[in-house]
């Protein structure tokens, strides 16, 4: 056992390194424990030469280590220098496996068995976690690696990739590159590749078919030996040559390890973080959490917190957080003058969903939010405007226009705009300020984080949203009180894509409301399921049986992974009985639907091929995942002459890079779904963007604002493979010049060769995420559609495309 230190810092990423530097500068006895043999493993593992960005720009850096945007190698080099000049004491190969004891005398045990005693602990282990290891004998041999830095490092080798998630497939494809002449095998324990993106799976299958990779399903490693690997296959054991094993078996999140120290998290969800005080102290006194693990994934935040946390634990109480001036700016426009902490307290005590939020979390939510003063009568948003942010009423009142001239008030402390937040659909009604008011607008990402980390907030939002959704569906005549019995026994059910919720012919009288996702309605006509209707989020179904008492007359199944709210038939009936006008409205809606059904049935008899085509096209569209699209590019291959003018137009109106790939993608009955963003209801790409730059714009477009750091998370998260990581090419000579003199690359995306040759001296291209922004800010609308000479390309939402009107026209 060594001398006790004042503070032990675990993890040497930007957060831990900055904390250790401050401790060294203050002359505190300290040790920085790092599991690997170098500093900052997460950044060490970035791709070679990656350009690391220093966002947010407005935030000042407060640290004893330097940091500015630049190449990964430069930054790591600078940090090594700073670690030395600050005289930090670092222990490498010191993976912490257990922490016991309490404030003043923690005992920290490493994997090697050393024990370090410390008064305080700063935990800065990031969120990368530990890769899962292989379990078969021989799993400790050195030729097993867990990441591939650069596929070019492997030439003419026998490589086996274990694990067929996206990471494994991407690595396998990388090393299987023809020029490297590797013999690549990828192993999958099960039959299919359910965990990977379809795009990756199809690329891999293609590589398998053309012989550049061998794909072995239902196969596992059994024994690793130098140069050889024994496989367990369905037909018995088999020994193959193998020089390198790439194990991509996922990783264990550090949460269990953190919890083992007794530290509590804010909730059970994946988005939850350790509960923290304003000084980053956890629920275990003496243990502090900072950096990505605390919910701050940007390097600059991490470094600032490293500095702050050591100041705090050294007794500095006067330190104002580095984000103080940003917060002050957020509150600056309000009529009252209060300090930042007074404002935060004001919001926390007034707004119901903020009640359980810690002061530290409050700071963060406000940084992702806007707050504004509205005069009586000001419009907050209009009906049918896209928008997914959530509004909270800090002061005053909001008025919802449920029908022209009819308004319903929402009181202080409550929220509005939650429908857009939960379903991703357009706003359902116009909202005005009912008095001089202060509203907080929380971005969707921040709201989801709030719901994930504060269970109380989640409960309030869910309940209010269900009530409102019902009020909106059964317009007018209903009050929140009427709904109470229905809402009390309502149950939220998750439905995976393709799962049947209601089966034609079954008995039952429950009514369902689609909370998120979408459903398709089908009916068996002449032994074949015929598509009747597409139901977007916000619609309801199952009401026919309640009114008629008859069995279900159609099948309803999920088009994409969805959430439905089940209301019991009895509760629903009681509600209808109490409010005759609601019953009337419901009956009218039922009659309309029934009429449409019989229309399709009658058409089926006389124009069976048109109905079949409509139905099959709808099925194809749903299979392509367009059920979750809000706006997708569709090409009619009866008209497309293959001129690629759409791609050229897209490139020419967006920094020279095309955001669509016309030729790629699936086709059915000459309807082609090219590779291009569909502006999903719940964009998967938004899930994990460290600088949080992916947003939904006012026209429903999902776009990236400036500040992308090029981490590629969104590219990996998008299931449709529509995001590219590219650097913008240099400016091209003008079109006229090209037409007249042939100088320059002409319309469209310039070739990589031209780009390389014409990149201005000294300008380092930054690869960032590029995707379709639906031609945001271009008043004429989507360039790809406008540039199509024959009318083959259109952008539509699935509702528009599958409307019954189309069938009527087609059937004549």
């Amino acid at each position, binding site marked *: 056992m060594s001398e006790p230190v004042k503070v032990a810092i675990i993890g040497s990423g930007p957060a831990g390194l900055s904390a250790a530097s401050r401790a060294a500068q203050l002359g505190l006895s300290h040790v920085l424990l790092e599991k690997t043999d170098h500093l900052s493993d997460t950044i060490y593992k970035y791709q070679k030469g990656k350009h690391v960005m220093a966002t947010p720009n407005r935030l000042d850096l407060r640290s004893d280590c330097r940091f500015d945007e630049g190449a990964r190698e430069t930054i790591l080099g600078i940090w090594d220098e700073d670690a030395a000049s600050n005289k930090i004491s670092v222990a490498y190969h010191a993976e912490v496996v257990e922490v016991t004891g309490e404030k003043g005398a923690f005992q920290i045990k490493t994997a090697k068995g050393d024990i370090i005693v410390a008064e305080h602990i700063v935990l800065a282990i990031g969120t990368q976690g530990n890769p899962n290891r292989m379990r078969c004998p021989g799993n400790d041999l050195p030729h097993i690696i867990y990441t591939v830095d650069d596929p070019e490092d492997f030439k003419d080798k026998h490589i086996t990739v274990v694990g067929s998630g996206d990471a494994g497939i991407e690595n396998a494809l990388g090393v299987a590159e023809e020029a490297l002449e590797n013999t690549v095998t990828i192993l999958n324990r099960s039959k299919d590749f359910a965990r990977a993106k379809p795009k990756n799976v199809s690329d891999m299958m*293609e590589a398998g*078919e*053309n*012989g*550049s990779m061998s794909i072995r399903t239902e196969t596992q490693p059994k024994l690793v030996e130098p140069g050889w690997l024994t496989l367990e296959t369905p037909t018995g054991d088999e020994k193959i040559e193998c020089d390198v094993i790439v194990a991509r078996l996922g990783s264990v999140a550090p949460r269990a390890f953190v919890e083992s120290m007794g530290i509590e998290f804010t909730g059970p969800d994946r988005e939850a973080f350790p509960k923290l005080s304003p000084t980053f102290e956890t629920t275990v006194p003496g243990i502090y959490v900072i950096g990505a693990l605390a919910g701050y994934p940007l390097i600059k935040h991490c470094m600032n917190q490293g500095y702050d946390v050591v100041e705090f634990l050294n007794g500095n109480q006067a330190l104002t957080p580095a984000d103080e001036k940003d917060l002050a700016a957020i509150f600056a426009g309000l009529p009252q003058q209060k300090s930042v902490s007074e404002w935060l307290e004001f919001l926390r005590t007034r707004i119901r969903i903020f009640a359980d939020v810690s002061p530290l979390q409050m700071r963060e939510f406000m940084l992702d939010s*806007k707050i*504004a*003063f509205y005069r009586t009568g*000001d*419009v907050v*948003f*209009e009906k*049918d*405007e896209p928008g997914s942010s959530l509004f909270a009423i800090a002061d005053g009142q909001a008025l919802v226009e449920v029908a022209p001239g009819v308004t319903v008030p929402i009181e202080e402390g409550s929220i509005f705009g939650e429908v857009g937040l939960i379903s991703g659909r357009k706003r359902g009604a116009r909202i005005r300020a009912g008095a001089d008011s202060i509203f907080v607008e929380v971005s969707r990402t921040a709201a989801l984080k709030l719901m994930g980390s504060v269970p109380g907030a989640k409960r309030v939002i869910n309940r209010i949203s269900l009530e409102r959704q019902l009020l909106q569906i059964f317009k007018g005549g209903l009050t929140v009180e009427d709904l109470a019995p229905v809402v009390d026994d309502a149950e939220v059910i998750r439905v995976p894509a393709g799962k049947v919720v209601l089966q034609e012919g079954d008995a039952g009288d429950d009514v369902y409301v689609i909370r998120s996702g979408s459903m398709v309605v089908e009916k068996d006509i002449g032994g074949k399921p015929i598509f009747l209707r597409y139901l977007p989020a916000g619609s309801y179904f199952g009401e026919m049986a309640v009114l008629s008492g008859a069995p279900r007359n159609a099948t309803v199944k999920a088009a994409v992974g969805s959430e439905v709210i089940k209301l019991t038939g009895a509760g629903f009936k009681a509600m209808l009985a109490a409010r005759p006008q609601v019953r009337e409205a419901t009956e009218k809606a039922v009659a309309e639907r029934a009429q449409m059904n019989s229309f399709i049935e009658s058409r089926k008899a006389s124009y069976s091929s048109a109905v079949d085509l409509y139905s099959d096209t709808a099925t194809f569209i749903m299979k392509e995942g367009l059920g979750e699209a809000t706006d997708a590019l*569709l090409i009619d*291959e*009866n*008209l*497309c*002459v*293959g*001129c690629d*003018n759409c791609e*050229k*137009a897209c490139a*020419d*109106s967006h920094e020279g890079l095309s955001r669509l790939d016309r*030729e*790629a*993608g*699936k*086709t059915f009955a*000459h309807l*082609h779904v090219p590779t291009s963003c569909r502006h999903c209801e719940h964009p998967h790409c938004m899930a994990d963007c460290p600088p949080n730059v992916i947003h939904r*714009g*006012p*026209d429903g477009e999902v776009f990236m604002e400036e500040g992308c750091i090029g981490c590629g998370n969104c590219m990996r998260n998008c299931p449709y493979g529509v995001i590219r990581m590219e650097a913008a090419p240099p400016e091209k000579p003008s*079109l006229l010049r090209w*037409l007249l003199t042939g100088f320059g690359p002409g*319309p469209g995306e310039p070739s990589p060769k031209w780009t390389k040759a014409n990149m201005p001296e000294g300008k380092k291209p930054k690869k960032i995420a590029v995707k379709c922004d639906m031609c945001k800010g*271009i*008043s*004429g*609308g989507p*360039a790809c*559609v*406008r*540039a*199509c*000479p*024959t*009318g*083959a390309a*259109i*952008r*539509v939402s699935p509702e*528009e495309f599958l*409307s019954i009107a*189309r069938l009527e*026209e087609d059937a004549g």
Partner: protein
Amino acid sequence: MASLFQRRRNKATQTERIRERRHEGFLRHADFRWAKISGGLCLLVIISYALVDVTPRHNGGSWYGYTLGTIGAGLILWLTALGYRKRKMTSTAWSLKAWTSAHVYLGLSLIVIGTWHTGFQLGWNVHTLAWALMMLVILSGLYGVIAYATLPKALSNNRDEMTQMQMLEAIRAFDRQLHAAAQPLTPEDTAPVLAALEEDPFAGSIGARLSGRYPKCATAAALRTLSASRSSDAEAREKVVGLLSQKEAALTRLRRHLRIRGLLEIWLYVHVPLTFALIAALSAHIISVFFYW
């Protein structure tokens, strides 16, 4: 606050963007708007030609002839501008489809406008040359429209969700496998396989590309030779023959793809140069009319 509102209000106009919900081809565009306009124009010309009395007879030099000539020349310049407009992306609401639609129908109306402008006085001179070139441009345009209307479907069917790159990749993959599989063959069997490997899938004359016939295809030749050969080990040869026929099928697909794309483009190589010839002849025509008349 104010800034929040401004953002919203400004954008409100954008939600009303022109949106097309259906696939409607350029020929049908806006319910045949340009077909109707152009048809009306032609009728107007034909009727007024009969009604207007020009002495001694209709010709390009009368006031009526001048009018038609000016309209015609203007139209030709406007039709030519499509080449620029097609490549120039602007941010305002315009659609190339509408332009193409107008281009096709107004282009056809030139048959009437141009011909009636001459007053049916044709001869062996620069004036008639301009007219003839115009008719050729129009004829080639007509071919283009027919190609645009009929070929895309065939292109789509043939490619079967594959991209051109993937077709090429598939051929390369067979080449790699052939290379390995041909190792055990006797030299006389190897030679045609090697020739097939060296064949560039894109090679071939324009004639071959447009007709889709490649009589000298090395893959087909290798397939014939090996199917008939008895020299190498039967099993190895069969494997190679199998691969060769797979490669041939892949080549056929790629060649069909290139053929249809060629047919969709080749006419532009007539249409556009003839347009420039037309403009040259038209200028000569106008100059000669003014200076030497």
